[in-house]
Structures are given as C-alpha cells and as structure tokens.
C-alpha cells in the first residue's frame, strides 16, 4: 500500500507510540533518518535506531527489538523483499517502508494494511496490475479439489464440472505464463528511485517543521545519489531546482530573524552555486565538481576526480604530462598546486574557478563545471555537499577488526551535525585515502589491461594481496572503482561497442573464508542507470548451483566463494550472450 499523504498516513500514526528505525548503511538513508530523528525529537517521541547492513542483520534487529513495538520504519531497506513473509510479524505490527531501491516487492505494494510504502509510485515503475499477478480465486483451487473428492452426489454435475475445470485450467495456465512474463519484466532491472531524504524533507515541509538543517541533509541525500550515479541526471537536476527554491525560502526566513538578533557570526548559510544565472540578482558563481578541492591540493583533486582523470587519461604517463600542461595553461605554479587549496595565494584561489572554466573546453572536461550546494557555518565551517558525501562514505566503510560497522555508522551520523567538525575532518582525510586507493588500483588495472571482455559484459577482478585492497571489501569503494574503470575503459577503448557494455567487478571480501564480493554496474551509454545484474546474478547462481550470499539490499552486490567465481562468470556470460 502506498501512503501518499505522509503526514496523515504516516507521521500522525506513529506519533503516539515508540517506534523502531531500521536504517541501511548508505548516506541517503542516514540523511533521511537524521531528518526523522529531529522531527521525533521535536515531538518527544521515543525511538530506537538500529543500523542494519544486510538482510540477515535486519532480521536479527527485528527479532531483538520487536517486542512491544508497533511501528517499524525501514529506511532504504526492505522495500524489495517480501517483509511479511520474511519477518513473520504479529498482526498489530505495522511496517513503514521508505526505500529508494526499486522495484518494490509486489507483496509489499499490494499488502492491505500491514506494509505501507511511503511515497508515490513513480510513473516509470510500471507496477503490474493486481489482477495480473495475484488471483483472488486462488483459493477456489482447493475448494474444487475438495468438492471433487467430497461430492459424489451426481455424476452429471461432475462431468460438467470437469469440462469447466479444463477450461479453467487452460485459462489459469495462460494466466500464469502471462504472470511470469509480467513479473520478469517488472523485476528484471534493479534501480534507484527518489532520494529518501528528499521524501522526508517534503514531509517536514508539509508539516511546516522544516529548517535549514533539514534541507541541508536532504541536499546531501540527493547529492549522494548523483555522485554514485544512482539516478539519472535529469532527475537530479529537477531535484536541485526544487531544493534551491527551498533554500532561498528558508534563508530568507532565517535572515529576517538574524537581523533582529544581530547574530551574524553563527548564521548558517547554504549557497547554491549555479551554472547559468537565470536571474540577474543571483550572483554568478560556477562551481567545480572536483572532489574535495577545498580541502585538498589542486593537483590531487584534479587527479582523483573522475571526469578529469578520464578525459586526461591520468593513469598513463602521457596523462601525467597532460595534467602538468593543464596546470601550466591555467597559470598555476606547480609549487602552489601541491599546496593545500586553503593555503594557496589568495589571488590564485579567487581566480581558480575562472581558470578551470576557461580551459575546460580545451581539455574536454566540461563536466566538471556544474552546480553544487555549499554550507557555511560561522567562518571556519565551509563544506560542499559532495565533500560531506565523500567523508560519510569513507566513514561508513571504515570498519575494521577493532571497530564494528555499526560504530562507523554512528560516526557517519555524527558527521552530519554542525558541531562535530573533528569527525567530519577525519572523514575527509579517510575519503582522500579512499580516493587515492581507488585511483591507484584503477591505474594498475588499466595499465595491466586486466579488464576482460566476454562479449556481453566486461569484468575485472581486483588482485589479492595488495595492502590497500582491503577497502574494496566494502561495496561503495568497489562501486566507485568499477565506475571509474568502466568510464576510463570506454574512453580509451577502440571497441565501438564499449559504451554499451556493463561491467562486473569483484574483490576479495574475506580472505580467510575465501569469500569475494561482486558488483555489477550498468553500461555508460544508458542515461537511466538500471542494472540487470540483480536478476542475472540470481539466475547464474541457479544455473551453476553455486551459493551466493545476496545479503545486501542492493541486489547488484553479492558475495560468493572465490573458487566458484570463474564458473559463475562463465554462466553469467552465457546467460547474457
């Protein structure tokens, strides 16, 4: 069941009871959860938040906490699973699902009361009609057999019944074939929908409880989707417009108060750097989509941003020269480019944007000029939305033997509050390390030409043994690596079909248990990032009888035994051929 009016259909219902929040490990979920937490705090509602990393985690968390909790809110998890079947809840428990993973499980959509999906169904979801998938007369099946065995009253009736039965059976067979194709079409692709943080923000706005912090979290949620390429660019542009309108509305309101209170120092300012000035009074500011450039050196930032690294082919020796050439054209001394951006000469810093913008065309790096939001709080706290996303991604994935993933999750949650600058800074440092490792690994892969082409898809296996490679046991760094190598491959390959090929990347997950993690990403040419690997993995596993551990909520990420990997890839190749 979809709940479209979130205030009436969700918030007011959970308001009077304690609720359980199960939150997936991703930035969007954390942002959505943070908005919800603030709303709950305003209303003095007790809640328990449990971070869940995978399906098993979710089931365990549910079982541990389900006592006396009536309302369970799933954030970015559970929507694609048949929750009632999986968790076997008591009658009185109600599930609220806020999930950006698509497609939703049909049992969740057509559940009468127990499962409620927050948000509107998208137009592109193409949800099958109820009657096509479920048959209310399913039960008549049993009745008939009962009748057949029990009622031997009249033979004539029985014969007629048999005729009817045959017709019915044929009809049913036809129906079930149709159902299978419909279901296949529906579940074939896995993709992402609207950011959950945005949905939560819209709810807060409808309740007029929104504030600048909330919009900032919503911005971060949607920025993450854009950075990781989870949604098509068209949608994220639309979202940006929507967010920008809210930012100006909220800053206006806040500005009036500030004038009264004369608290200039502690104001929170979110600025939106726009590509083209639509209004004359809006100050023209281009923004650069370079990773963390405010907190890094220009050289490193150029090297580790995907658009520049791909267009300049920075993984090769020539690329290195090209980077030097770009810096020379910009008129940026090498010594300066190796300094932290904040320590560069003021004049260079002020001109930096224009310099890059002027040369973007020449070096074919137009994509680095775009739009972004920046938050400024006081004098020292100035961060771009993408900076925070990278910091949070690095924090989420920073679990190690001494630190539980759940602890990392709470760190990432803290990272969002304005007062925890030290956590954010440590996150940014970790993000730099992560980006460096991603770049270095991609460089090795590209130089050694380790990308294999099976004809229908590309695959790359990250070699074992390197000390840095343990970070690829986590899904997000692996996803970033896969996206980077795919783009780089497509850009440098002579194969004309390269843009149409998806990529599968695999790395060691746990060396002792001989498990590896595998991820599939859609091809470059598709604007709408729908991935067919979710189903394909499942099917390939079935064909090879290998055991895969699809514990992640994103079905395009799986774990399997290392020994079974070659066999699995072969099966995948024959399946997709």
């Amino acid at each position, binding site marked *: 069941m979809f709940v479209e009016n979130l205030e009436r259909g969700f918030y007011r219902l959970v308001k009077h009871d*304690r609720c359980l929040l199960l939150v997936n490990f991703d930035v969007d979920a954390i942002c959505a959860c943070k908005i919800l*937490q*603030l709303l*709950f*705090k305003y209303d*003095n*509602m*007790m*809640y*328990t*938040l*449990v*971070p869940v990393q995978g399906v098993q985690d979710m089931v365990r968390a549910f079982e*541990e*906490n389900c*006592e*006396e909790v009536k309302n369970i809110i799933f954030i970015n998890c559970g929507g694609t699973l048949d929750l009632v079947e999986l968790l076997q809840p008591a009658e009185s428990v109600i599930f609220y699902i806020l999930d950006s993973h698509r497609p939703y499980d049909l049992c969740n959509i057509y559940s009468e009361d127990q499962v409620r999906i927050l948000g509107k169904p998208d137009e592109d979801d193409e949800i099958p009609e109820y009657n096509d998938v479920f048959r209310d007369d399913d039960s008549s099946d049993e009745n008939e057999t009962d009748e057949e065995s029990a009622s031997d009253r009249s033979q004539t009736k029985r014969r007629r019944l048999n005729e009817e039965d045959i017709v019915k059976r044929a009809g049913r067979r036809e129906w079930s074939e149709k159902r299978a194709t419909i279901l296949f079409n529906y579940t074939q692709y896995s993709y992402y929908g609207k950011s959950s943080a945005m949905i939560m923000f819209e709810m807060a706005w409808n309740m007029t409880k929104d504030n600048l912090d909330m919009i900032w979290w919503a911005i971060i949620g949607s920025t993450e989707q854009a950075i990781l390429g989870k949604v098509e660019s068209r949608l994220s542009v639309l979202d940006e417009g929507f967010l920008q309108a809210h930012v100006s509305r909220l800053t206006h309101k806040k500005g009036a108060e500030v004038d009264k209170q004369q608290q200039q120092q502690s104001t929170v300012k979110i600025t939106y750097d726009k590509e083209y000035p639509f209004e004359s009074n809006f100050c023209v500011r281009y923004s650069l989509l370079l990773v963390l450039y405010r907190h890094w050196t220009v050289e490193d930032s150029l090297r580790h941003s995907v658009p520049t690294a791909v267009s300049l082919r920075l993984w090769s020796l020539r690329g290195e020269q090209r980077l030097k050439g770009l810096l020379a054209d910009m008129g940026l001394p090498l010594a300066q480019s190796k300094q932290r951006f904040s320590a560069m000469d003021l004049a260079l810093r002020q001109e930096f944007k224009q310099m890059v913008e002027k040369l973007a065309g020449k070096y074919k790096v137009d994509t680095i000029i775009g739009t972004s939001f920046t938050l400024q709080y006081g004098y020292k706290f100035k961060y771009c939305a993408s900076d925070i996303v990278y910091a949070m991604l690095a924090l989420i994935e920073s679990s190690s033997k001494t630190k*539980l993933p*759940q*602890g990392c*999750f*709470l760190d990432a*949650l*803290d990272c969002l*509050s304005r*007062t925890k600058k030290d956590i954010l800074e440590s996150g940014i440092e970790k993000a730099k390390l992560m980006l460096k490792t991603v770049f270095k690994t991609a460089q090795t892969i590209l130089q050694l030409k380790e990308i294999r082409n099976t004809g229908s898809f590309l695959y790359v296996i990250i070699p074992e043994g390197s000390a840095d490679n343990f970070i690829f046991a986590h899904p997000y760094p692996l996803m970033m690596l896969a996206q980077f190598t795919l783009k780089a491959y497509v850009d440098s390959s002579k194969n004309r079909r390269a843009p149409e090929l998806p990529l599968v990347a695999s790395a060691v997950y746990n060396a002792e248990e001989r498990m590896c993690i595998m991820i599939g990403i859609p091809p470059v040419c598709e604007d709408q990032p729908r991935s067919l690997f979710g189903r394909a993995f499942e099917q390939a596993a079935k064909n090879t009888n290998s055991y895969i551990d699809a514990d992640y909520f994103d079905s395009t990420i799986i774990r399997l035994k290392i020994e079974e990997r070659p066999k699995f890839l072969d099966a995948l190749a024959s399946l997709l051929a």
Partner: protein
Amino acid sequence: MYGRKGFKLISELDLYSDILPFNEALIKEILQEMQSLYDANVANSNAIRNDNNMALLPSVQLRHIALKRNKRCILAYIYNRMRKLKELRWELGSILPPEINTNLINAEVQWFQSYNKSLAKYMRSLGEDHGFNLTTNMVPPKTLYVEVKCVEDFGKLELDDGQVILLKKNTYHLLPRSVCEPLIRQGILEHKST
C-alpha cells in the same frame, strides 16, 4: 612566627577544590602551638596579676589574637570540608565514592550520615506519600527526552510506563531523561547532543 601553620591549612583548602585527606598532623601542630601560646599567656597573666607588671600586657594581647586566629583557621578548615561534603551529597547521592570516603575522618563520616538521614527524612515528608526527590533536576531540564547512544551491551531496560527497550551496543535511542541519567553515569549510555 605565630599563625603560619594556620595559614598553611587554609591555603591547602584554597588550592585544591576536591576533598583531600584530613590533615591531622598539621592540625595537631596548630593545636600544640595554641597550647604553648595559651601556656605562655597564663604565665604572663599570672605575672601581671601578681606583680602588676604592665609591660607584659601587649605581648599577652598579641598572643591572644594569634590564638584566636588559629582557632578561626581550624574552624574554617572543618567548616569548608563539611560544605564540600554537603555539595557532594546533592551531586552524587547518598553513597560517596570510595576515593572520597577514605579521605574523611570518623567525625565527618558520622556527620555525613546524619545529614543524609535528615535530608531523607525531609524529602519523605514532602509530596503526598511518595516523598519527593529534591536532588534530581537541580537545573530545570531543557528537554524531557535525550538522545543517547548505547556504548555497551546492557540488555533489557524497562521504562516507567512498562515498555521494554533492548539496549545493545551501537544503537541509538531517544529516551526519557530520568531513565537515562543513571545509565549515563554508569557509562552504558552516552549522551549525544546535536
């Protein structure tokens, strides 16, 4: 010089804000000093009375002032320790931590117990039947609920209204302040402020 030791006692009080071991040795020395002052004064005053030797009078007066000053110092020392103990009672409750308890002398322990008793008696007399705990919420709380992070596995926690909450490591909760406070002190929960 007279009064030096008294001054030392007071400056010790002034330098450290927490309760130090009761400085019995120094107090004994001060008392000895006082005794000797007193003895000298008795001798002199006898001399004045018997011999009418008025020349001794200023020195008697001086000693007397020194005597009074020492007395004030000791009383101030004792009184201030008592005041600190009183503050601790409101802050930490009726049971003192062992590191403070070892620093007290017997008389202080007795005083603390009797203070406890009278405070408890008073608090019981307040309110209807239930008594009223004056020591909670010394400062009006800003919110009734606080955000807490669970740092250690604790198990099940029952709230005042009978709801049961499972406190597991690395979970995050919004709970009533009154329930959380003791757990935060025990280090099971960690208060998170945004």
